[in-house]
């Protein structure tokens, strides 16, 4: 059962130009947490900004009883988060969402992360590593500063490729261009996991559908409740079956907060 209540902020450090890493001590939250799940946090005790913010679990530390959130300051809520002091308390709910599900047969996995979207992939990467499943990680971002966790992956000895829009690190171009090579490679991956901006996911889904590579993607949508009650966070899927792929009206809404955020890449419909 998810936890909801106060928890101690163990640390809250700036780790990039707009990136912060917050460690939260909450044995109750950690207990059932798995890769791909998220926390829903309040940014203030006052009535403005009102709603919670969904942030993925970036580290799940069962030993310490803590989770870490890696977040980018993009607006008022995340700015308030960045001002929280170690030793203070945060109002947090979680773990929420379904999380990634490593399929039985997966032997050689491709991981694709775009920008801050790579955050929830790290607990997954650790688990794959622990399970000795071969993996290649592709990270993309606008520029070097926005590439997250590269050092961490290097330290773990995980094969990692980087693409930046400005070419300041690794390949100059989109991370999907790196992915294309792997996806098309007959000796390439037998499964993939991805998280990042919608255009990236859309392109990746197109690529993998063509080649028949299966996988899972983690989606974002504006959230109210985070628990499946408000129906704010829906995304289009083919769950109801699709007779006519041209018919834009054939889709079924699923809730990102409870039926996701992780979806089978085969079932999601991402509009432009």
């Amino acid at each position, binding site marked *: 059962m998810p936890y909801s209540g106060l928890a101690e902020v163990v640390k809250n450090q700036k780790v990039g130009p707009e990136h912060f890493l917050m460690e939260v001590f909450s044995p109750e939250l950690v207990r059932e947490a798995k890769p791909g799940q998220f926390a829903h946090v309040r940014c203030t005790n006052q009535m403005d900004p009102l709603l919670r913010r969904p942030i993925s679990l970036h580290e799940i530390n069962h030993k310490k009883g803590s989770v870490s959130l890696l977040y980018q300051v993009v607006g008022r809520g995340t700015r308030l988060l960045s001002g929280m002091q170690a030793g203070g308390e945060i109002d947090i709910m979680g773990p929420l969402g379904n999380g990634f599900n490593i399929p039985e047969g997966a032997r050689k996995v491709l991981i694709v992360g775009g920008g801050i979207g790579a955050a929830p992939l790290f607990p997954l990467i650790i688990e794959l590593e622990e399970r000795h499943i071969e993996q290649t990680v592709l990270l993309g971002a606008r520029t070097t500063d926005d590439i997250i966790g590269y050092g961490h992956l290097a330290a773990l000895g995980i094969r990692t490729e980087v693409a930046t829009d400005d070419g300041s690190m690794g390949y100059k171009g989109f991370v999907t261009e790196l992915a294309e090579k792997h996806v098309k490679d007959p000796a390439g991956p037998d499964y993939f996991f991805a998280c990042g901006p919608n255009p990236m996911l859309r392109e990746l889904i197109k690529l993998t559908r063509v080649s028949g590579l299966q996988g899972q993607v983690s989606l974002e949508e504006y959230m109210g409740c985070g628990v499946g009650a408000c129906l*704010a966070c829906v*995304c289009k899927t083919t769950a109801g079956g699709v007779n006519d792929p041209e018919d834009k009206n054939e889709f079924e809404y699923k809730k990102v907060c409870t039926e996701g955020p992780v979806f089978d890449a085969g079932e999601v419909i991402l509009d432009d």
Partner: protein
Amino acid sequence: MTDMGVNPAGKGFNLAVNLGGLKMKNPVTTASGTFGFGPEYAPYIDLNRLGAITVKGTTLEPRRGNPTPRIAETPAGMLNCIGLQNPGVSHFIEKDLPYLREYDVPVIVNIAGSSLEEYEKLAGRLSQAAGVSALEVNISCPNVKQGGMVFGTSCAMASDVIKAVRRSTGLPVIAKLSPNVTDIVEIAKGVADAGADAIALINTLLGMKIDIQSRKPVLGNIMGGLSGPAIRPVAVRMVWQAARAVKLPILGMGGIMTADDALEFILAGATAVAIGTANFVNPGATMDILEGIGQYMKKYHVRDINDLVGAAWK
């Protein structure tokens, strides 16, 4: 579950209220559309402690709802344009109601139709289903063209809907009104005359938000309903006005976040209160509010919650 759980003020204090024939063990229910069909919040609170559960707006046929984005945050509030997404009344009766029947809590079903016939049919279907305790008639949804606000902003149409529902059910009928009107008292009187047993106030205020980067409305449906603490002063005012003008009990809602807020509505004249947006902010909101009302009663030696109803003007 101890009695203390249901009645946080303890022995000798009465929290039970009667909302137009619907007996509630305490005045706290949920606001339709913010609490799903019950199971969503079961991990966070004991549903049995609620005075009633009000479920998501239900229609005759399944509805897919509006395109995303469906919500946007605003100062101390939020806009939503969910658009009554729901699986339809048959699915509700077969799949959702059995779950709710497991609990010892009355179920208020919020209904919306796009014609008088639909309202009538819905009321009829639900009256035959075991486990429905009352009907909340939504004539105030700002997010769908039909079955929506248009019914609630015209006194004649509001009355017609209530009459249609009244004809087809023996359950308590709660008319849920739109705040987007010039004269809430006129509409309240209209639905009272049409046979409503109680009045629910308020649904959301019609609002919108524009993204200055894209220069387009933020919401998928352009406009949406404003809820949350931002609208509380308007809601309290309308409850006050309606309570003084009409004899019917009132289910007050709109921005209730804490027990103090709930008490404001009760003092203004609400017999019971519904908690909406607050659930998103604090999944334990209903329980905290219930607890706080009990504390208040103890502190001020209020033996019966009904003594507080409308106490600000009585």
